[in-house]
């Protein structure tokens, strides 16, 4: 467990250094803490900084930690998750865009940081496509429309009918203005030609509380954060924003089945600063894909409602560029643009 001659000895053992904890861990027999020693390659050279542009505990953070933990074992160096939240995930992304392109700093790129926020915020100092070497896609998640069980509309069609009957008096909650879920609401009101009343919250948790309490009837939420509430029966799922039905929730129709042409995914991947050597990108891509394919990780991701994507770095790069271009007009239409 010690730093086998590594230049940065402290970082080799970030966790066991807390002697109390480590001693206890050993006593209780958690053997999985040790990091396998690997032959020293020129890369990775010391610990890898894995920046998560959101606060700890959120979906992005969970995804990053799931992947980071496996990456740490595969690469033989610590992968240190660092949360740098702020400004729609752009603060953390900027840190990585400006970091050295030596493969030691990576970011959990996602739909907010690399597709929506760059159109939403006025002073973004990075280009989500040009300033990054996009490495690998981890997973995509659909969003889901949930309703309080006592709400009068218990299907997407009934909801639209209700909105037509009472224009501007039918609400929906989301985790915040400018989130991908808010934009689903905007697209729904455009597609169905109805006026809907957006009630934004500070994060999915408070919004879900008010839906469960019946303050707001309906909410658009990403599947990972809504899954347990759907399973627990505190809310009903009315529609899912994926192409096909989700295997974890086979009874929930897609938006398309319900007659509204909306397909929307939030996605999470890994990116490094532009100029990162191709060899490092290739190695990271291979390791991340292998990590995501591990049964334990794949199962966890699926439980969270995500579907892992086994893509090359080129595929992911092209995808990010597409998403960035596709979201700009929607963001503008939402009126949520920050000046």
């Amino acid at each position: 467990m010690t730093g086998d001659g590594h230049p940065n000895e402290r970082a080799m053992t970030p966790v066991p250094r807390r002697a109390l904890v480590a001693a206890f861990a050993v006593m209780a027999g958690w053997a999985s803490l040790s990091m396998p020693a690997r032959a020293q390659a020129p890369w990775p050279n010391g610990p890898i900084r894995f920046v998560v542009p959101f606060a700890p505990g959120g979906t992005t953070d969970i995804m990053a930690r799931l992947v980071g933990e496996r990456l740490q074992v595969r690469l033989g160096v610590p992968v240190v998750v660092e949360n740098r939240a702020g400004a729609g995930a752009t603060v953390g992304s900027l840190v990585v865009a400006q970091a050295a392109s030596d493969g030691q700093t990576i970011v959990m790129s996602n739909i907010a940081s690399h597709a929506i926020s760059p159109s939403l915020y006025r002073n973004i100092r990075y280009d989500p496509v040009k300033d990054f070497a996009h490495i690998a896609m981890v997973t995509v998640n659909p969003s889901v429309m949930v309703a309080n069980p006592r709400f009068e509309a218990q299907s997407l069609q009934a909801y639209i009918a209700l909105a037509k009957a009472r224009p501007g008096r039918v609400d929906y909650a989301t985790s915040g203005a400018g989130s991908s879920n808010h934009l689903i609401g905007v697209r729904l009101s455009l597609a169905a030609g109805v006026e809907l009343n957006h009630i934004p919250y500070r994060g999915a948790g408070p919004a879900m509380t008010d839906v469960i309490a019946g303050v707001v009837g309906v909410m658009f939420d990403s599947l990972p954060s809504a899954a347990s509430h759907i399973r627990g029966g505190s809310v009903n799922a009315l529609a899912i924003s994926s192409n096909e039905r989700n295997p974890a929730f086979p009874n929930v129709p897609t938006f398309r089945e319900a007659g509204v042409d909306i397909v929307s995914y939030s996605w999470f991947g890994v990116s490094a600063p532009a100029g990162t050597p191709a060899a490092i990108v290739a190695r990271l891509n291979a390791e991340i894909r292998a990590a995501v394919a591990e049964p334990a990780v794949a199962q966890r991701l699926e439980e969270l409602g995500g579907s892992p994507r086994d893509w090359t770095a080129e595929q992911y790069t092209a995808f990010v560029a597409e998403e960035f271009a596709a979201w700009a007009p929607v963001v503008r239409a939402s009126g949520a643009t920050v000046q």
Partner: protein
Amino acid sequence: MKLKPDAQALLAGFLFIAFAGAMLWMNMEHPIGTARRMGPGYMPMLAFWILGGVGVAVMIGGLFSGANAIGRFVWRDMALILAAMIVFGLTVERLGFVASITLCVIIASFAEKVYRPVRVAGLIAFLLALCWFLFIWYLDIRIPVFPWSY
């Protein structure tokens, strides 16, 4: 009532009014919206108008509440303390926390009347050891120790 100006209250009131005025001016770029759909400028408008009103009340009250001098400011000590923190902030990421703490303590110590280099050196050594133990070894927070740490 007799006019007995209170310098403290007058300055406090002035600061409230000045702050409220500056923020209200900046708030002009934010849409106010309606009571039903309040814009981003609605609450600031309410808050800063109230603050301005309170500021006026404090100033008027201060004209009669009796002499109350502001007292002396220790500008030099204050500047040194604040400078010590600014230097820490500027250097911690580039030079690591060992160098940053050293600089911070040296600057802050100048606020004492007598500068005792040996005492300060001892304090630096002690603090470096303590901070390394607490922050790096025990809590393992993400802070560079040396310039080459990352």
